[in-house]
């Protein structure tokens, strides 16, 4: 068993505690799997993983109106932190930030090789990205939540549902 697989297992466990589902797929299966998860309207960001593309109904150039109406937002995660169930979403020109935070359901796609075991590993990757100019990143962990209205409620300003898809062969 490789270290990456161990980290994915740990990520799955952490996400399970956060009531976030994790799916393991190969790059070849990813597009079909995404298609099966879709609720329209769906918006997304072009995926940087070789051999993986967004299913046809997903628009990558949303208008303000589609952003406001979208049910699903699909973005890549630059890396994931296994111990806390965290995905790193970049705030960049392609629109990952609004596309991951506005729709009710966020699907984050991460390569298994980008799953680091702990926060220290995450900060190592973060520092690398900062050095390379990618200096706006969000660590997103689980679903948007509040207890301000007297009880715990999910899906406040951010997504009430999150799915993490791990590309096992990337």
């Amino acid at each position, binding site marked *: 068993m490789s270290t990456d697989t161990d980290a994915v297992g740990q990520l799955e466990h952490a996400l399970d505690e956060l009531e976030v589902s994790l799916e393991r797929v190969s790059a070849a299966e990813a597009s079909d799997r995404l298609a099966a998860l879709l609720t329209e309207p769906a918006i997304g960001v072009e995926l940087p993983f070789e051999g993986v593309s967004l299913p046809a109904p997903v628009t990558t150039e949303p208008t303000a109106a589609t952003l406001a109406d979208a049910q699903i937002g699909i973005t890549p995660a630059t890396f994931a932190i296994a111990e806390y169930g965290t995905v790193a979403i970049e705030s960049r020109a392609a629109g990952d930030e609004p596309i991951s935070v506005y729709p009710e359901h966020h699907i984050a796609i991460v390569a298994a090789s980008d799953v680091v075991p702990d926060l220290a590993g995450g900060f190592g990757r973060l520092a690398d990205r900062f050095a390379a100019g990618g*200096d706006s990143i*969000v*660590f997103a962990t689980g679903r948007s939540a509040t207890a301000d209205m007297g009880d715990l409620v999910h899906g406040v300003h951010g997504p009430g549902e999150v799915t993490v898809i791990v590309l096992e062969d990337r």
Partner: protein
Amino acid sequence: MAERSHGPGQSEGRGSTAGHTTSYPRAETAAHLRQLLETEGDAIHAHTSVSNRRRHEVFDETDDLDALRSEARAIKEDAIDRLPDLIETVRKAVEANGGTVYVAADAADANAYVADVVNNRAATSTAAESASGRPSVVKSKSMTTEELDLNDALESEGIEVTETDLGEWVLQVADDTPSHIVGPAMHLTREEIAELFTEQFDPDEEFETAEELTRFARDHLGERIREADVGITGANFVVAESGTITLVTNEGNARKCAVTPDTHVAIAGVEKLIPSIRDLEPFVDLIAKSATGQEISQYVTMLSPPTESPTLTFDEPDEPIGANTDAETNGSTDREFHLVLLDNGRTEMRADDQLRETLYCIRCGACSNSCANFQAVGGHGFGGETYSGGIATGWEAGVHGQDSAAEFNDLCTGCTRCVDACPVKIDIPWINTVVRDRVNRDAEPEAYDFLVDGLTPDEESGGLDLGKRFFGNIDTVAKLGSATAPVSNWLGETAPVRSLLERTLGIDQRRALPSFERQSLVDWFDARGGEQESKRRAAAGRRAAHDESTDALDREVVLYPDVYTNYVDTDRGKAAVRTLEALGVPVSVPNLPESGRAPLSQGMVATADTQASTVYAALAEDLDAGRDVVVIEPSDLAAFQREYERFLPERSFERLRDNSYEICEFIFGLLENGADPAVLSTAGGGGERIGNGDSGQPIAYHSHCQQRTLDLEAPTVAVLERCGYAPRTSTVECCGMAGSFGYKREYYEVSMDVGERLASEIEQASTELVVASGTSCGDQLETLLGRTVPHPVEVLAPDRP
């Protein structure tokens, strides 16, 4: 909903020039706190105690917690040390990114700058018109903007402001103020919020569930965010090197506020600067753990604005997002970013050796959650103009002035439970002590000073509150009380005397006074034959208790006769002497000075400093002779092991710290080194069966707050287990009595409220025996449970004279 009054001194509105605490009649303070106990106490307790329990759990599960806290502390120390450099570093970084940095001297300066930004932006904005047509701002939660009263300032300029954090929005709708720095609306119940929203927004169906309220808020606030000209956020941390604003949130509103409007203004105190992105790691790891007991918050947003994220223009719904994005630079040409760094007293705090530590605070609220008094009354009682909880004394004294801190500072009893909770290891009780001292010194002399002048050999200048002076010199009081007992006890219980004590010293008539023993512990020990007799008894004990060849057991003890053990509760002192002798250790009980704990608790720092020197001088020869100092009252041991570091030379402090022990800790050491517990009074009698916890005789044990902070609850539990008991320990952080606190007229009811929670926890344990390590804890529990609550050593001591 009626506007709530927040503090007896705040009725004239913010920034009032109300004087220090003692200028309020005690009854008025008592009435204010009573009202909070009744209206907000239950909701506050429910939230804070859960967060506190979760923090305990996640701290326990974090292996390298202490190293992490030390690392975070070191980063803050370094950052504050070179703050002026970091301000220049961040200015360059933000400007290189295309943003602007403005260092605001004070609130008026910051507010004027922000209003200008908003007005300029609104004049050229492409954002949708707000319903009112006025310039509009959406905000995420920020205590720093509360400190500025930014909303009022912007609204007076005709700018529409909407809070988007649900808790803050509830307060905005209710025209209320935060009761907690992390959960600002935690004093309101779901039912109260539902009623408020139904009244305010007149929905088709009345609001009922949190789900309905949240859904409504999301839709309502979502619209405000889409229309806004400017998004304002705070910042939990600002990374100087890269100009990165870090926002730690759970709802996602800060993410939306930062990137939806084209213009982002981040407002942060200058103390939020840390050098580099790698320095952020321990804080990201600690802040949610400390605040809510989560491993990490939902969203840790690290933006180095203006960001490349596409602009969102909701009044052109059919244009692709990012239409204003410049393909050449791969970034938005239309984004604007302003970082407002607020001074507002922080430079002076940095120069103040006592208040500087406050600037390390990351505002997680752990000091509030771990505080028994805060859990009872919340931040509307235990708070100043803006900030609340233990650390608020430092913040309020620094940013709003000492008067604001003086309004609530006495609610800190110095129990030290926040010391273990603080992720950056701030000595919060010390800050409270120092500010209390400064408040005392600024006060005017009072009319009844002659009443206490004769009693008090203290080092304080005039003007000190009479009650404080009385309790700060409790050793003199106790000596006199003991010398005149039982007359002093009879007198103390008469109505005219109690009435006089309440009027002049503020001692609540409902609280039973301690009953002085005519023969002090020191006198009893001398009369019994002193050290010679103790050596004889120890030698006999040694033959019974262990093998004489064990060097580790060859100890001699100086038993410290703290004021209460010496004059009031001599039984526990006698029990300690008998126990040590039975285990083969000879004891001396010299007449030693008061530790300084009593004056410290009243903010009488100079007196405590003198006491520390006197105590050390009195013990130096014993320490040099290799004797161990054993202490029964945990608060006195805590003075030796914590506060003396500030009063004594390092070597003296370390010498006393390393050779002083809590009584049960010392007994545990003897048992661990081979002494036989069977010579003690073990459960089941005769010591024939020694249990290991679960199977023993049930006993409820409340450790002492300061003892817990010294990590000394465990040895008592272990000793009880070794002696055949199955201890059930309390989780309530403090008994609420806290030395003098529970005697004071203005705090009696808070004290009882805290004590009742402890008492009900103890009652649930349904054990025949209840023990407590602190005098105050024992007194409080005896009052509330109506039964005897001895010190554990009284249960363990062998039954002989």
